[in-house]
């Protein structure tokens, strides 16, 4: 059997709250420090302590970042799930089993090693509490030793994980050494998997999408952050708070921002809108249930034309759904959120870099278009660790939109808050407190004319909503545009967005091996632009791949260009709560192409 180098999955099954997260991150970072691309995915329960949790580390020579089904190395530490975990393994899988766990059914087709973790950890510390944590670091040592991960790479990862805590770092290193020693004493012949040093991670960073989005917002001039904790979005706000506290004080140490933890998501939306109205760059972050609650306020923001940024880190709905699993199920809902005729700008980040860029871009677009802007991330992107090139510093001026200052008011004859002066559907606004006779206007969610006066007149109502539609049309070419990658001779197109992107990157390579060449359009925002229709026009068949049951983007594209898309457009969907993998995407397309699926 040949040796597979830098291309396999390691799965660790533990109990949440047991401190295994640090060990898993150290193992992942050790491989990263070996120069090998990694993707870490935490599969965790909606629970604080005591329930099963799994961590999957994918090492990928090609740098594929999406989930990959299958496990080559399993570390089974959780008595509650070990039997199940082991039963699911393919023949030949290397399994490290805590020897205190008894299996009802022994499997002889696995390479199963029973590791005396309890005995090994006893050498390191007499304290029971510490042993509980350190035991995890022993499997890091064992796995590292078997795979050929160098000690330097592990030590570097430990120093990073326990930065500033030398005593803890030393103890953890000692635990790794114990694991390494045990593995040396218990060698495996022909393991078949190895990590070999590469240069593919040099200079790269590892960050989760929530922190990346927060960073983008803080460097994008975020001023008011209002939030209500909800999985999986809480760390957008927690990260933003940490960055704000670090970087956003004046010379007297006073905050150039405000953060409010609100009583619910309705209030978060209200604070963001109130602040946006009064001239501050404001945002909130939430998940599906919060979006449902915000519907009324979003309609207000849309109709009264007040900037607001809302991050939706999507989880599985409807209702409470699967709060710790991922989906792209809020696309259609957010696009038209609220009663009446509405349509919103929705940004669709696929990578941590997108999260960073859109953190600032959303604030710019909200002020430019004077409207709510959604950023639809998801749990997979938001809470998992992703490798990326470092983020660039954006130094272009912040786009604050059409705001009339006191001086500008002096130069114009009349100010009408909701008048389309420039023909792009975007009116001018003034900010409360502007000391000018022409400045004040009355903002109301009820019917109004272009001077913001109360009106129930048919032509006034129609004029406003028609202009709002025009504004949305303007947005089509001004939101982040799709990215297209082509393959000479391809007649099949793929459209995807958000984290599905990563399954497409790998999936296209797999399809090519099956003889199917594809072009790929990655949609990065709503409203859709005409390029999407051109892309469909130029292909025989186009598959829209996404992570929801109803093919929501597929439907949005169809309603945008029905006549054109009817015969050509196909929908491929993945919606079981796990991140989409390349195989699901490839199988869906092969089925559509009537190619037999193995």
């Amino acid at each position: 059997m040949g040796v597979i180098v830098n291309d396999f999955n390691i799965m660790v099954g533990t109990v949440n709250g047991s401190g295994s997260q640090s060990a898993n991150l150290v193992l992942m970072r050790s491989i990263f420090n070996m120069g090998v691309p990694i993707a870490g995915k935490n599969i965790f329960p909606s629970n604080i302590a005591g329930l099963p949790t799994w961590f999957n580390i994918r090492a990928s020579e090609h740098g594929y970042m999406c989930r990959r089904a299958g496990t080559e190395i399993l570390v089974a530490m959780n008595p509650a799930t070990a039997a199940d975990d082991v039963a699911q393994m393919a023949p030949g899988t290397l399994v490290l089993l805590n020897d205190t766990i008894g299996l009802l059914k022994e499997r002889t087709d696995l390479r199963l090693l029973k590791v005396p973790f309890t005995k090994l950890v006893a050498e390191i510390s007499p304290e029971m509490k510490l042993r509980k944590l350190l035991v995890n670091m022993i499997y890091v040592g064992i796995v590292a030793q078997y795979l050929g991960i160098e000690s330097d790479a592990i030590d570097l990862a430990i120093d990073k994980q326990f930065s500033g805590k030398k005593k803890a770092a030393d103890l953890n290193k000692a635990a790794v050494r114990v694991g390494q020693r045990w593995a040396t004493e218990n060698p495996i012949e022909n393991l078949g998997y190895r990590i070999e040093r590469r240069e593919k991670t040099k200079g790269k960073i590892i960050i989760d999408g929530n922190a990346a989005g927060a960073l983008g917002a803080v460097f994008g001039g975020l001023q008011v952050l209002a939030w209500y904790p909800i999985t999986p979005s809480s760390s957008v706000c927690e990260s933003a708070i940490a960055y704000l506290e670090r970087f956003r004080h004046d010379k007297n140490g006073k905050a150039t921002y405000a953060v409010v933890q609100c009583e619910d998501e309705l209030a978060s939306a209200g604070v963001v809108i109130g602040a946006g109205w009064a001239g501050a760059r404001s945002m909130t972050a939430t998940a599906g249930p919060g979006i449902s609650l915000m519907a009324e306020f979003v309609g207000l923001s849309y109709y009264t034309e007040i900037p607001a940024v809302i991050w939706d880190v999507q989880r599985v709905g409807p209702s409470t759904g699967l709060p710790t699993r991922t989906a792209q199920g809020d696309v259609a809902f957010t696009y038209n959120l609220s009663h009446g005729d509405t349509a919103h700008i929705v940004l669709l980040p696929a990578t941590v870099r997108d999260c960073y860029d859109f953190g600032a871009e959303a604030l710019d677009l909200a002020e430019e278009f004077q409207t709510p802007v959604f950023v639809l991330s998801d749990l997979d992107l938001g809470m998992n660790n992703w490798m990326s090139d470092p983020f660039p510093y954006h130094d272009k001026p912040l786009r604050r939109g059409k705001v009339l200052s006191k001086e500008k008011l002096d130069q114009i004859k009349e100010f009408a808050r909701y008048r389309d002066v420039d023909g792009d559907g975007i009116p001018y606004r003034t900010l409360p407190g502007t000391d000018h006779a022409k400045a004040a206007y009355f903002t109301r969610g009820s019917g109004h004319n272009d001077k913001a006066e109360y009106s129930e007149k048919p032509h006034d109502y129609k004029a406003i909503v028609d202009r709002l539609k025009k504004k949305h049309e303007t947005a089509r070419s001004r939101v982040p545009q799709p990215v297209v990658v082509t393959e000479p001779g391809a007649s099949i197109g793929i459209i995807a967005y958000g984290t599905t992107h990563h399954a497409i990157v790998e999936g296209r390579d797999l399809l090519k091996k099956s003889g199917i060449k594809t072009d790929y359009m990655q949609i990065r925002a709503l409203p859709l632009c005409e390029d999407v229709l051109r892309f469909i026009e130029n292909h025989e068949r186009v598959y829209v791949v996404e992570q929801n049951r109803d093919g929501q983007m597929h439907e949005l594209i169809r309603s945008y260009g029905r006549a054109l898309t009817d015969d050509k457009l196909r929908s491929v969907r993945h919606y079981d709560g796990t991140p989409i993998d390349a195989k699901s995407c490839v199988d869906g397309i092969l089925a559509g192409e009537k190619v037999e699926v193995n």
Partner: protein
Amino acid sequence: MAEQDQDTPAAAPAQKMNKLGLSLLNYRGGKSTLCAGCGHDAISAAITQAYFELGMNPRQVAKLSGIGCSSKTPAYFLGEAFGFNSVHGRMPSVATGANLANRALNLIGVSGDGDTASIGLGQFCHLVRRNARMVYIVENNGVYGLTKGQFSATADRGSVQKKGERNTYEAIDVCALAIELGCDFVARSFSGDRKQLIPMLQAAIMHSGTAVIDVISPCVTFNDHEGSTKSYDYTKAHDWILHEIGFVPGADNIEVEFDPGTTRDVKMHDGSHLTLKKLATDYDPSVRLNALSVLQQGKADGKIVTGVLYVNPNSESFADSLKMVDEPLAHLAEKDLRPAKSCLDQVMDELR
């Protein structure tokens, strides 16, 4: 004695100017579309007069409201101020946002009893907890006017609807609630008592945190009949006035002396004085427990207690508790909002 004069709002001579050189006209708003005789119009007139007398620049004021008859009124006063008629029961969060974006704005929120005590009870409570600087007025008539007279959550148990139905639910007392939640300025008044309401409003406007004023404001169309406990007649007959209120603005404050034997003097945050002339009893509004006690006493005796129930002039506002810059966030320049490149480089290094 309460005096009812909602028919003669703002009757000051037009030529009278305040310290900014503005006349009362500069503080007026659009024409009211409420029913003739509505208590809310008298409150709008009192607000107009209060700001005029204070000599506050109306352009520095922002008026906010929720939904309902009460919430229409910001269009009827201070026409030069920005206004925001938001969504039902949720003005407090919008006001909080506006306060954080521009702490120099003088905020006045107008809500109703349904908007505050029914759909908006949660937001009201949390506004009070945060203590964002604003005046929060509840125009309280015990019924939903715009949907034609259903009881709201402040309707007294036993009060009778126009069609004869009796309210069987316990009333929510927004003043007692505000005091319980730590509000540092809580008062109750009557739309028919402009002499009480105007100085009360002025003190509230100068207060450094959230100032809650519950104003009994009879609904002439749906709740002004016999059997209603929120009618003009009932309120006048059962008004228990705690003290005679006066207000002396900070700037005009030249050695004012008050006889401590007859008058309580509360020095407000900005140096102005709220004076409370003793009536039958000597009510001390600096003790939270007194307020809860007098409200319970009033309830037991079938009285509507009006006056300044509780005041702590040294209230720490939300913006101060957040240690925000003094300059409004909305006025900060780009250089204050975007950290330097070295900051990002630092973060990137940590993530490597």
